[in-house]
């Protein structure tokens, strides 16, 4: 034992009969009344307890003064090198600040004029990842703790954290999630060319590893991934089949059709439905053809009326063929069977069906046609779903219509949620212009969902439309928290260069007659937070230059 010098009598000449430390502890525990140490009892002129304390004091100081270093434990395996350049010092400090702003540590309630730093963390991480910077090691614990509490942060946080975070996660069970989130717990996948290794991992790997393998392969070697899946398909469990099938969304091509056709007869209904959905996204597939025929037979142009009108004849039954192709026969409560079936047919049919079928009209012309017998909303909603699924720009544009039309703000044929999805297939600039037009015409209260699909930072016309509308809302005398959703989005999405123009809005305005009491002050606070947040974002951007 190298730690404590053994208290042996030979080294302590001043106390010739020094009792051992253990003897002293025992005597102290039991009390000198019961257990007097012989060596102490003989100390002349001293009570036994005092003699015991004397001896213990001497021993205590001796023991402390004689401490020696301990033997070293096995050293940890060093963490793998991170080849990325470290973030610049200013950015490192900014990250430290963002990470100290954990939710729940503040006062709660009203948000006040100070920015919500935690909301800026995702942007910071995304930018650092785009620029290819590596994480400062001493901030990894705070970063992992933040990612632990917020699953939405994890992918970006773990990418940024790099190999040392995995090294840490193996040492601290609190951060186990990092190992789970990284395929194979950071064990690298075999290269696609290494067929035996790939086959082995596919056959012996854990489920998560197999999904990761399939997904990775699918991205670059779609065919190889399909072959792998086919090789074991019949032996997989139903839930696993569903997950594996889902991975085929990446790189979907006509080559997948034979396999998907067979999956239409799968034992599991969910697998069948997914297979049908994938096939319908392949316009050339046999299933798409069958759906096209079925859907086309339901919709026609009626030329007998004054203006051409669409007539709809919904299916009268859901036959075995339809069911096999993924049509769900039983409608949810409150919906008629026939309209339910129609919706599914139109949704699954390739949009290219309609132009030849409906008199060679463009999508815009088709959408503009009146629809007989109240079928309009049903039909347009189904077309919307088809346009989203097939990512068809022309149809999306046609179904969206002009942003200023009174219909656009709903509750017309197409809901705001559907419009948001349709917008997603348009080019970024067109999206921003459309939403700007919508806000100018209808105000902000309905725009939240639409803003969410716009590219960040917002294009200039869109940003201006949002700020103008906020300004109008303020002048109208309402409270800013009616717009807190949009405000929050604006803080994260407005172009930081807008801060200059916004400066004027931070002043406390004169209260108009019918304004809500105190609203002016709250608006000033809200705009102050917006401006401060934008300045922070500008600072963040400047602190993370391309390396």
């Amino acid at each position, binding site marked *: 034992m190298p730690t*404590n010098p053994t208290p042996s009598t030979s080294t302590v000449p001043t106390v010739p009969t020094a009792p051992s430390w253990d003897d002293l502890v025992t005597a102290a525990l039991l009390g000198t009344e019961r257990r007097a140490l012989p060596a102490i009892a003989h100390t002349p002129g001293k009570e036994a307890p005092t003699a015991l304390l004397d001896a213990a004091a001497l021993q205590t100081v001796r023991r402390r003064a004689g401490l020696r270093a301990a033997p070293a434990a096995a050293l940890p395996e060093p963490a793998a090198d991170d080849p990325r350049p470290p973030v610049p010092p200013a950015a490192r400090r900014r990250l430290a600040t963002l990470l100290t702003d954990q939710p729940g540590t503040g006062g709660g309630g009203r948000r006040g004029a100070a920015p919500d730093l935690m909301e800026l963390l995702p942007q910071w991480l995304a930018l650092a990842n785009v620029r290819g910077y590596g994480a400062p090691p001493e901030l990894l614990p705070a970063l992992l703790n933040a990612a632990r509490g917020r699953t939405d942060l994890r992918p970006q946080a773990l990418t940024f954290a790099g190999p040392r975070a995995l090294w840490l996660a193996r040492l601290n069970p609190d951060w186990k999630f990092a190992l789970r989130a990284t395929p194979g717990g950071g064990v690298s996948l075999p290269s696609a060319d290494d067929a035996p290794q790939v086959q082995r991992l596919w056959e012996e790997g854990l489920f998560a590893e197999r999904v990761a393998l399939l997904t990775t392969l699918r991205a670059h070697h779609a065919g190889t991934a399909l072959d792998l899946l086919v090789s074991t398909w019949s032996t997989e469990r139903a839930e696993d089949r569903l997950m594996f099938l889902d991975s085929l969304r990446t790189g979907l091509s006509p080559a997948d059709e034979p396999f998907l056709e067979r999956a239409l007869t799968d034992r599991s209904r969910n697998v069948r439905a997914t297979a049908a959905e994938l096939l319908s996204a392949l316009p050339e597939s046999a299933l798409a053809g069958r759906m096209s025929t079925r859907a086309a037979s339901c919709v026609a142009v009626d030329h007998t009326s004054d203006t051409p009108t669409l007539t709809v004849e919904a299916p009268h039954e859901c036959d075995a063929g339809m069911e096999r192709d993924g049509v769900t026969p039983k409608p949810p409560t409150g919906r008629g069977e026939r309209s339910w079936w129609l919706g599914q047919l139109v949704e699954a049919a390739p949009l290219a069906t309609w132009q030849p079928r409906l008199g060679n009209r463009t999508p815009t012309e088709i959408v503009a046609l009146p629809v007989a017998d109240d079928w309009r909303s049903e039909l347009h909603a189904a077309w919307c779903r088809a346009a989203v699924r097939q990512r068809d720009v022309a149809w999306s544009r046609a179904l969206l219509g002009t942003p200023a039309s009174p219909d656009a703000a709903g509750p017309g044929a197409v809901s705001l949620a559907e419009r948001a999805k349709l917008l997603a297939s348009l080019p970024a600039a067109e999206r921003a212009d459309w939403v700007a037009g919508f806000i100018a015409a209808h105000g902000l209260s309905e725009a939240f969902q639409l803003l969410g699909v716009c590219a960040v930072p917002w294009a200039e016309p869109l940003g201006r439309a949002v700020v103008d509308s906020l300004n109008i809302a303020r002048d109208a005398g309402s409270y800013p928290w009616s717009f807190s959703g949009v405000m929050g989005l604006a803080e994260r999405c407005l172009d930081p260069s807008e801060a200059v123009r916004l400066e004027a809005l931070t002043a406390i305005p004169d209260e108009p007659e019918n304004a809500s009491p105190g609203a002016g002050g709250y608006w000033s606070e809200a705009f102050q937070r917006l401006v401060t947040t934008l300045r922070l974002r500008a600072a963040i951007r400047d602190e993370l230059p391309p390396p």
Partner: protein
Amino acid sequence: MTQQGVRWTADQVLALAPDASTRKAGSKLGVAGPWSEAGSSGEGAMWGLCKGSGSKPYQTIVDIADSAGPAYKCSCPSRKFPCKHALGLLLVWAGADGTVPEGGEPPAWAAEWLAARRKRADSKQSSAAAPAASADPEAARRRAEKRAERITAGATELEQRLSDLLCGGTASAEQMGYGLWEETAARMVDAQAPGLAARVRELGAIPSSGPGWPVRLLEECALLHLLDQGWLHRDRLPEGLAATVRSRVGLPSQPEGPPVRDHWVVLAQYDTADSRLTTRRIWLYGTESGRTALLLSYGAAGRAPALALPVGLALDAEVTGYPGAGQLRVELGEQFAAPTPTAQRPPGVRPEEAVARYGAALRDDPWLESWPVTLAEVIPARTQDVRDARGTRDTQGLQGLQGLQGSWQLADATTESALPLAPSATSRPGLWRLIALSGGAPLTVFGECGHRGFTPLAAWPKDSGETVSLC
């Protein structure tokens, strides 16, 4: 003296924050947005108007070159010190984005305060030159004698209590609980011996402190007995040791001796608090003298101590030591310039040398819990579960600490020796910062080395880098 271009890092600014919420609030104000009419003299004074939620902006002034450490003034109602506006202003200044331009003249509202401070500093200096003339030396002597008598009575009574305890056995201490000790501690407060009172209070907590408590209780009883005896026989002790005993008992002392001017690197700053008092410890390292020194600053319960120094920066300042053998405590004297960044670090030693230094320091002050050391080239390593984690026999030695499951040590990169981390250090977030910073590679670590193990307080990565605070 000019400090053009020498800016602090945000970490160093944030280290001044009195608490986490002020740190957070201050960091939000560390952007140009809310600030107007800001400026800096280029000699450590800066000022600015910060827009709050009211119509009138707050007037914030900071003087980092104040001779008594950074000084702050703000028209906000906060009682935090420094307040979030002062931190925000420092951050904007540290950000060097032009919001706080240098070389300006302070506006009237700032100039007045700054001038008054500089004037006070001058008068303090001149008054410090003349020895503090006590009004009535005879009365002071009588008061001191009276107090000494009271302490002697207290120490004598305490000896009796300890004797009674050991006569009946410490096994009964577990049942006796807190009450007895609280009462005894109160008697020591009455006896004007706060040092004894604090030790007695700690005795009360030991029986419920987990495995190994009989050993710890005997040790603390024995050291308390040693202190009593030291006081009762202080006239027979060498002067240095007598001074140490006086200060351990709780008699106030004044710094004495010639001031030492040096470039003092601020190694660490941390607070400990009990229900009565917040104690702030600031460790300094003199790059020229090679001396390590401790600044203590106190705040009433719940309030931050007044002095805060930025970790990692160096102060060109004078310090004056307190009496007592091996005493590290100093008082901060005049500061000659604003704190500036430095790449200097204390030279490190091996684990064997670290414990040897603690051992040597015990010769001058047997009541020392730990001694400041810097370890060179150590790697944080997890100790294996080598033996029964209950450690009932003796967990006192460093070897005993090794037995605790999942504990950590700092292992020397080349020799086979290591220092276990103190149990209190392994539950702090700083531990993981240290481990992450190392990544399995050697680094330099400053901390306190004592009989409970090593407590890391600051670290530097192997290749040059800023001080990473672990407090």
